[in-house]
């Protein structure tokens, strides 16, 4: 099993903030913001030393929760300061983006970072459609088309035009091309039938997140089935499982920390918007309809002391087939950076060496 550290920025507000989305940008504290980017370098250097395989970044907007609205920009900064670990962008929100621009930026990044880029292509959480005034009902179609265009832009040797449904170009010919050929390891991110189908058809990986192992196993099982239909078999490393982890020296200590874990997302949408979005945004897991997750806190999949967590990771591998876990380290009830670093160190020393053969 390989391990990725999900770098969220960890903005620490000096004052109490209202828990709403969008967060008023007037509440932003520039010193705290500067600490975010300094802290990223410190943490990523630390997990690199501990032997983590990847660090991951993701795109979110209009709140302090994850302070990387532009993952390629964050990665450009970080890859020039931390020199060995791979950077997984999980991912840029394709439905928001000019796909050709994204193909260019990711190719630049891969080249500047010496071929250390991993790309996850994401539809985006439901509220994110509000960021750039996009219709949430079009997000899946825009994502599918954008992903296909990005792959095309990386691989076509001649300038080409694109007559899409949501995107149209008369001339595409990206420079630079990615250093890794034909393109960096790329994943469709999502549990839906459409994500699994797309990934299988285009022979790329699949990234799933946050659900129970059994449920995520349905999504990865569907993906593997479709890969077989298209005449290939994904490797374990082509399946990423992203999850939250609460790790402590003992199970009891981890359980105590869990008691402080909130039920509601830290920056919630107003009720009217949330219920309207729920109606507009259809989601599914391998074809089974599921409501979008709005305003609920994300679950914790791995919780306990090192022994327990090792067993949970073993079970995760068995049920989902994932060869990479991308971990968001949580220290509920405390914003203490030292506690966070201690959890990372504990993972590096007591868990990481024991999961390599899983």
């Amino acid at each position, binding site marked *: 099993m390989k391990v990725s550290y999900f770098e969220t920025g960890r903005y620490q507000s000096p004052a109490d903030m209202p828990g709403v989305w969008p967060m008023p940008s007037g509440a932003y504290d520039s010193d705290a913001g500067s600490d975010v980017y300094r802290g990223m370098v410190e943490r990523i250097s630390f997990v690199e030393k501990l032997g983590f395989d990847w660090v991951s970044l993701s795109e979110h907007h209009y709140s302090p929760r994850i302070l990387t609205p532009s993952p390629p920009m964050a990665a450009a900064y970080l890859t020039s300061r931390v020199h060995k670990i791979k950077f997984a962008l999980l991912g840029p929100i394709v439905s928001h983006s000019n796909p050709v621009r994204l193909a260019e930026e990711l190719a630049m990044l891969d080249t500047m970072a010496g071929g250390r880029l991993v790309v996850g292509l994401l539809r985006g959480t439901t509220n994110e459609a509000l960021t750039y005034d996009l219709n949430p009902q079009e997000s899946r179609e825009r994502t599918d*088309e954008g992903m*296909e*265009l990005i792959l*095309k832009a990386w691989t*076509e*040797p*001649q*300038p*080409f*035009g*694109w*007559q*899409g*449904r949501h*995107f*149209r170009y*008369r*001339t595409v010919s990206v420079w630079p091309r990615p250093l890794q050929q034909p393109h960096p390891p790329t994943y469709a991110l999502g549990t839906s039938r459409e994500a699994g189908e797309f990934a299988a058809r285009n022979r790329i990986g699949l990234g799933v997140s946050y659900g129970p192992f059994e449920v995520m196993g349905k999504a990865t099982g569907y993906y593997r089935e479709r890969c077989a239909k298209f005449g290939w078999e994904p490797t374990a490393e082509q399946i990423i499982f992203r999850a939250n982890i609460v790790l402590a020296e003992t199970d009891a200590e981890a359980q105590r920390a869990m008691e402080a874990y909130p039920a509601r997302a830290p920056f919630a949408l107003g009720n009217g918007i949330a219920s309207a979005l729920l109606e507009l945004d259809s989601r599914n897991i391998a074809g089974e309809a599921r409501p979008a997750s709005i305003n609920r806190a994300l679950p914790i999949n791995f919780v306990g002391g090192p022994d327990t967590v090792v067993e949970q990771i073993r079970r995760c591998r068995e049920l989902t087939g994932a060869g990479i876990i991308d971990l968001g380290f949580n220290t509920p009830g405390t914003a203490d950076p030292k506690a966070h670093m201690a959890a990372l160190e504990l993972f590096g020393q007591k868990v990481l060496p024991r999961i390599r053969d899983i």
Partner: protein
Amino acid sequence: MAFNEAWVEADGFRIRYQTAGEGPPLVHLHGAGGLRLNPAHDLLARQFRVIAFEMPGFGAEENQRTRDMAELAATMAKAAQALGLDRFNLMGTSFGGRTALFLALQSPELVRALVLEAPAAIRPAGGQPPSGSPEAIARRLYAHPERMPPLPKVDPRLAMQIAVLTQRLRGPDRDADLEARLRGLTAPVLAVFGTRDSVIPPELGHLYKDLIPDAHLVFVYDAGHAIAAERPEAFVEVVSDFLEREDAFVISRVKTVILP
């Protein structure tokens, strides 16, 4: 727009065609399935005088005379000339794309601009045209057969006649002589490929740009082999823009003002 059926005598054949519209002439040569009008023909006829030929042997009458693609192309050039066309836009679909390329090479003075829809001038090794039941053919032709109207039932005698004819005329999958001659093609070319084409893979598209001096390559997203039938608006928009403005079709005229 209503198409009218008509016939023209040329090169010893009585050739059927469908025609509609006014404007610059646009001659269409169909694929190996024969002449079948689709919504793209209607859209093109709003801007062009569309002449969709049924090539000899693809209809009621057999054609045992034409020996190869060069001869078929020569016949179709004569058919266009018999209609009084001395310079026209030419569009070829799949098998007819190969015919259109031969025509443009043999009679460059006739062809103003050339559109190739999923052309079969370069084929994957061992590739075969769609065949079998209408359902089986639809699965080869379309990325989303479930969204398309059902194909008409096939008369087995006609299907056999067409299969024999196309096997005789289609030529090798890769024709080194043809590909060498493409370097001398003078007409501007637009080669259009469906991103989900399983008959002529879109990955072959760049070869037309590699070989033809003045070529453009366009992918129609989420279309199978029958691009014009499956995504007619997307196909016609780029084709008519190319035929109207040639190289300058790459300059967008799309307005993005939302609220003036």
